[in-house]
């Protein structure tokens, strides 16, 4: 009854940024990114990609509440890098990886469909 509308889950409300960045006040080189209207799908993959980065000391995300459709990613890096940099790097790498996956898949599909 009181559940939010379904579209709330993926439509970013007007005036809200998809991703917002907030530096941690206590720890150097630490920050949290709030990604609106995303859930474990993105959170998990970003987290794991960040883990691959040698400069990242801490990377984690959490879903604050099941009915709040946003995730908070927290990153802490060494002084060689910065959270923003690590985050960008991770996103770019993921992008490439997924592109690659897509292209390989499509090639395979083309090959198989060509055979029949």
């Amino acid at each position, binding site marked *: 009854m009181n559940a939010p509308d379904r579209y709330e889950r993926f439509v970013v409300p007007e005036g809200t940024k998809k991703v917002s960045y907030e530096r*941690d006040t*206590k*720890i150097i080189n*630490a920050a949290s990114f709030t990604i609106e209207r995303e859930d474990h799908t993105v959170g998990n993959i970003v*987290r*794991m990609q960040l*883990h691959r980065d040698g400069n990242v*000391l*801490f990377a*984690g*995300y*959490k879903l*604050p*509440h099941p*009915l*709040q459709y946003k995730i*908070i990613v*927290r990153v*802490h890096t060494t002084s060689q890098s910065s959270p923003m940099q690590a985050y960008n790097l991770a996103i770019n790498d993921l992008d490439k990886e997924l592109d690659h996956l897509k292209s390989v898949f499509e090639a395979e599909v083309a090959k198989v469909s060509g055979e029949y």
Partner: protein
Amino acid sequence: MKKSNGDNSSSGRKKTTFGPQLSEDDVASIVMGGIVEKGVNQTVSQPQVTVLPFPVARHRSHGPHWAPRASNLSTHGKEVEEDDGEDTDLTNFDLVAADANPIKRKQKKGLDFRRWKELANGDDSVLLHNKKEHKSDGNAKPREVEKELNSTKSEVVKSHEHKIGNVGVDDIQSNIGNGIQSTIKSKNTSSHSLHVAAGMEQGSTSIESEIDAENRARLEKMSTDEIAEAQDEIMKKMNPALIKILQKRGQNKMKKKNSIDSAAIGSISEAFSENNKKESISDNAHSTTITSQKHTQKGLENKDVAEVKSAATSLWDAWSTNVEAARDLRFSLDGDVINNYGQAPGNSSAMGTYSVENASERDFLRTEGDPGALGYTIKEALALTRSVVPGQRSLALHLLASVLYKAQDNIIKNQARSTLKVGNQNKIVDWEALWAFALGPEPELALSLRMCLDDNHNSVVIACARVIQCVLSYDFNELLFDISEKTGIFEKDVCTAPIFRSRPNIDVGFLHGGFWKYNTKPSNIFPFDKIIKDDDAENEHTIKDDMVVATQDIAAGLVRMGILPRIRYLLESDPSAALEECLISILVAIARHSPTCADAIMKCERLISVVVDRFTRKDQIGVDYSKIKSVILMKVLARSERKRCMEFVNGGIFQKLTWHLYRCAFSVDHWMNIETEKFKLLSALLVEQLRFWKVCIQYGYCISYFSDLFPALYIWLDIPSFEKLIAKNIIQEFTAITKESYLVLKALTRTLPNFYSHSEKVDQSIDDPMTDAETWRWTHVGPMIDLALKWLSLENDPYLSSLLLLSGRMNNEGLTLTSVLWVISTVLQFLFGVLKSVIPEDNSIVSGNLPWLPEFIPKIGLHIIKNRILSFDRSDTNHAGSFLEFLHQCRHQSDKETSLASVCCLNGLLETVITVNKLIKLAKTDITMSPNDHQSVESADKILTDGLLKCSISEMTTLLETFMKLTSLSGQLMQSVEMFGRGGPAPGVGVGWGAAAGGFWSLNILVAQMDARLVLQLLEIFLVESAKEKENHTDDEMNMTMERLNCAFSLCLLVGPMDGFIMEKVLDILLQPEILMYLDFGIRRSLTFGWRYTEEEYLMFSENLMSHFKDRWLHVKKSKSKTRDGQHGTSKKSKFSLNTIQEDVDTSAHTSLLTEWAHQRLPLPAHWFLSPISTIDYTKLVNLPVKSNVLEVHKSGLFFILGLEAISNHVSSNAYSIQNVPVIWKLHALSVTLFAGMDILEDEKTRDIYSNLQEFYGQILDKKLLEVGCNSSDFLKFDKEIHDSYSTFVETLVENFAGASYGDLLFGRQISMYLHRCVGAPVRLAVWNALSNIRALELLPPLDKCLAREEGYLEPPEDDEMILEAYVKSWVAGSLDRSLTRKSVAFTLAVHHLSHFIFGNHSGDKNSSRNKLAKSILRDYSRKSDHEVMMVKLIQYEKPAKYEKLEQAADASLQGMEIARRLTVLREACEGNSTLLGVVEKLKKVIS
């Protein structure tokens, strides 16, 4: 119906536990096992515990809790059932019959599965076993199976119902059905826990398997030669024919088992997918072929059983054994246990002829001799109540009455509480168990009693009434209520209805001590609407409902079965005096049960008027017991509600019942002329009538009657001539009336308007229709005070002084002393009552500002001084020994009542002295005295002006010290109330809860609570004093204060449901800002703590904690308006609105003088003080706008707890303190603080406190570890002791840690605590897996930064293969990679335990798993070359000799020979796999 359900389901379950084991064993082991169980050790004659022990720990409504004897006794239920009639064991005849009855099976069809589900939800550990079957070879993949089972669950349910008639398959099917639930249930507890869980199930549920386990363990220890030898020995002992039979049976069983197993699984798996079927079949076949290996594995498992079994379960086992033992006890007609009825095996066939069913036959069959000599069991007696011969019926009822009475008597007497530990060996009858058995979940007792009450033979009816009276524990309850009323301190009565605690939830951090609930819902007791429109309800209302209620709560059951109309009928039909007395007693007991039951009595038409009629119609002058009890009944009813009291007064019932009071206006001589016996009765009646009046006064009615009644009262209030009383031997009776009169006066003082208030407060109260405008007048008070002071003139009255002062003391009989002490205590209370209404309401009046002091105040003060009631340092040099000292000595007397009376006196005395002192200080005027007072004591007025307290300070200090010891010793008393998580083991009322030594319903606790009150008063004086002085304390003073603080803390545990305000007072004292400052001193003393707190902070702490504690523990749940489910909402809503709560309490106080256990939380659990840090605030998570100060409360709580810990370190006495609380709770509470987020760690000060607490608890953990020793190390069983779903909790915690903590050190420490070796394997595994899955292992701190010492994590080496596998899994999956570079504790742990497991010396049995682990690590290395460093570390790892300098030790790695050996081990582990061998070669090169 219900019963048969229970028995079938549980016998089915039994088979499931036992079946698979048998199928896997070889023939020899069956024979061996069989022999032992068959009674060479005579285990058969001992009662057996069932799968579901008695009674189930949760709610009674969960149905019958143990199967009937038939299925219990058959230690080998399977064998018996599948035997084709060759069984020669004579004792098992009837057992087979009970099990083989096919008709019963069909009956339960509809309900069967539901019940299982219930049970499955209740106790998952029991059900996990089926998973073991799947898992046992490692081939099957339980996770997959689980998923599929999940999806097809509903189908299975259906198919289950269809095939239920199919007997052969039925069992196995149920087996699998069980398994499904268990798998579903255990999804959270990850599959690795199986091993242990299976072990647990065996350990906790049945003794059979324990015996079995023991046998197997012994078998394992024996060498093959030894086994052969033993076998020979047994063979020789046994009849060869028997052996043959046994062997044959064993073989048959093997065959059958196999066929059935596979057939069943085949058929059931039709409901599943095809491949699943194959898998399970092959699995099954596999398991049956492997025999020898299985055997060893069994042995392993059994070792686990012994270890895993916690103290709680063994206690539970002992308890259920004892309860079952009660089934076989035989009683003679007067309730004694008959021991020598011949339990020898030879005799058992003879015994068998008398079963429960034919108990009534026996007296016909045996006309000669003594038919009753054999005695009756309880069940037989119950069966006999249905006999056709009235004589037998009443005989049986008499027997029951005497047995029940004896049981209660013994429960109360048994102070040692040892029966449980002793067990059943030395034939001590465990009366608690017997009582629990008699009342227990089998509803026969309630039903037969109800039926017998309808009997048409008077003798049967009266006997039945007696039994009911006993069942309701009328006598013992009344004794307690009488005494508690004598104290005059408890204004409210407590309900006697049985109760249990609601289960803890995550909101309060699983902290135990939830609200109490009634065992049976109040709406079930008396379905009013149904009674009114009887016709409609006829089809709904069945006897089964009644039975359910009766098993939950026997009194409620009886009421529901319409005992009240029957009693009314009996009363109307002019019963005999004895019956009438019994009936009214029953009514009283029911009225005391709960408000609902009192309501039921009121609503039962004509019942009250019949009772009153009988009271008035009978001979006016004569007094008999039923008259006394009628007055008690009215008093109890009036107490329960204000309106009812008003009805009684307005309806003339009160006047009718108390007219004896008016008759008393005769001279004393008249009284003396009454016969002693008559006088005793009359006195009892008068006492009750005065109490009834007192109740009315407390509600504010009938105050004006005082002027009419005063002439009569005067006789009692004055001091009598003791000689005459002694001559007539009625001193006790006389003083009882006096005491009660003073209590009435005390109640009257409550209604006095304040002495100084001139403005009429009365106007205000007129608006309220409920309050009566009547008040007592001050003009009446003066003479009363004079009378009262006469009782305190110890010096002037020779009799009193000889009795009550040490100096002139003769040896008096105790009873007189006690009764006089009671009088004096009430006198003092009356005086205190008067003084209290003199204290100006206006708080603004400071000392010296009071306009004038009424004359009686210094008079009272002088009286106290002159009569040596206190000893003042100066005045008493010649004759020592004041009244106070005398009382002090009386406290230590063996007689409970005397000591209670003396403590009451002390209480009253202190209260009076303190108030007089306070008032004089307030006034500070010259004390004007009449000249005749002056002459005796010159220094008296000086003492008065100096302050009574100050002058007697030394005496008070000694008093405080002794009583502090007394209270702290009894600190644990209240804890026994909650044995097995409920008010008591049995569903009776009051004493009938059957808790050891009466539990809450015993004088012990009453005395302890009285002591506590006294200590509280003294502490209030001393602590406040010392707090005021501030700073500049010597060490001794500090220590003393700390001791006192600790004592105040331990006081809280003694608080019962009646006296929440004591708790409030304790909190007020303990949480004053000044006292918190003391805690701060304490902290500073025991550790270096850099922070300083300001006054404002103390103030804030105090406010926060005060409101939190009061809210959390003292808040009484409003019941009526809310539904049960609403509880959650209410408690949450009210969390931040303290004011409204207090209002609630106030209004309830006006409308009722009854305290319910239900809806409140007192008494407190031992770890109550942890509540501020283990409350989870969800509002923050959801970003709700509710402003909450939870964070502040957390901070304050952390400070408070650290303070308590610190001071308890300095306390010398070994009494109860914070240190006695198990460390598991403390560690858990720290985790809960972090559960909702880690804001708490952001504040620097709090962070420091938190880390200090962690260190503290680490030290405690180390200490505990030293105590228990290395072998039984896993004492931190979070999942067992705190909550079943602890692993879920911990997983969430880990998620928080990995998601938001930035790898905070303190948080990491807290998490790594769960990897300590002391933590039970399931939780440890859950934490490791959660960390590994979420890649947070590397975030944990290094080992030397963890809490507690390093070896706690490393020793003893891990032997749980599940955990080792988890280590390897994380290794392979790469989640350990970074742990190496970051030196996280995770890597250290993995390397340590793995290297020990792989390279250590093991006997052969672990070889396979070792090889498996080694191979997977090697394979992983072959794929990932960057694991080389880790690999080398693993091989070179040497167990450090000392753990302190682990860093260096890790670097100093192994060389030479050992490395070579380890490489060989690896090579062996490869088992010839060439690629892996290559990997080892590569490693060799790297290392060398």
